[in-house]
């Protein structure tokens, strides 16, 4: 087991507003980890820092012992919380784009998943419903053989059937050496597939534990614990 993600005194502020404060975190590879916290707690900020979309105010961040950069981007597969593809493109174009840039992108797997959903590869993204677009993005992300998958709110705002599909896709494409970091505030839906959870509140990590330990020691589900910790 090696450390896939490490944060040292990581801080991020936007002007006078602090989004992350002294985050220290080490994540071992081979786990599915839930990054849990209410809206505005700093989940997305942390995820954007991991992907190099934000520059830290102070502190360090390492992915597989490398700072964020070309090397880290090769092994991180990221699903943002919104659509980020040009809507004019066809699915096929996007696939070939990923194929060109990501050595670990398995095009055949992506096409297989597409076929299962009866999505035509020549369809343009702009003609698709929001849910379909999200599925296409998930297929792109999960068709990579990455070491770290970072999924920002993958199940927010989708119907239960789509949610089942998403969780299933994640599980069926996950290989045991990889690590998946899932941010969400819908805990009960994904609790069963997590083996570790990180609670984040007001830009600080307030709990990092295995799901079994929480259930065994506290005798309650992560969802119940979350409600207790973040009671308003």
């Amino acid at each position, binding site marked *: 087991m090696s450390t896939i993600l490490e944060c040292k005194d990581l801080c991020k502020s936007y002007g006078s507003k602090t989004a992350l404060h002294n985050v220290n975190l080490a994540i071992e590879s081979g*786990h*599915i980890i839930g990054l849990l916290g209410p809206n505005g707690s700093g989940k997305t900020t942390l995820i954007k820092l991991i992907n190099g979309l934000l520059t830290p105010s102070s502190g360090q961040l390492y992915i597989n012992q490398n700072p964020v950069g070309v090397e880290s981007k090769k092994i991180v597969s990221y699903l943002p919380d919104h659509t980020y593809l040009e809507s004019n493109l066809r699915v096929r174009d996007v696939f070939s784009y990923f194929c060109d840039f990501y050595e670990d992108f398995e095009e055949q797997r992506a096409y297989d998943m597409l076929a299962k959903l009866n999505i035509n590869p020549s369809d343009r993204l702009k003609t698709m419903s929001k849910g379909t677009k999200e599925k296409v993005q998930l297929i792109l992300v999960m068709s990579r053989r990455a070491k770290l998958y970072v999924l920002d709110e993958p199940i927010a705002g989708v119907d239960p059937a789509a949610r089942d599909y998403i969780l299933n896709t994640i599980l069926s494409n*996950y290989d045991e050496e990889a690590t998946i970091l899932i941010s969400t505030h819908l805990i009960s839906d994904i*609790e*069963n597939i997590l083996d570790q959870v990180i609670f984040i509140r007001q830009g600080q990590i307030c709990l990092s534990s295995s799901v079994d330990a929480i*259930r065994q020691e506290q005798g*309650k589900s992560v*969802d119940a614990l979350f409600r207790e910790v973040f009671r308003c």
Partner: protein
Amino acid sequence: MPWNLTSDRPIFIQIMDIISLDIISGKYSPGEKLPSVRDLAQEASVNPNTMQKALSELERTGLVFSQRTSGRFITEDVQMIEDLKSQKAKEKIKEFLENMEKLGVNHEETIALVTQTLKGEQ
């Protein structure tokens, strides 16, 4: 179809219970090969690591055994399965009797009611 898991107990223990039950009930016969961790995890909609842990624990009880290359198998020790079956059955009966006592039905009356119900079914 995800397995029916409750939220208060560790998931791997619940998975162990479910697989044990499948063995006792004969869904898996002695010596049969278990599906892979990945397939079972997907069937149950749980983390493969959790499934792995549950199966390792089952191995420790002796109910399943692994062969390094070919996967995991149900024990061929029929006696052991039978023992487990009667143990589980006894647990259920105890639980049932306790529930009847709560209703104010004593053991003799319970037996009478059970017999009566069984006859009714026939």
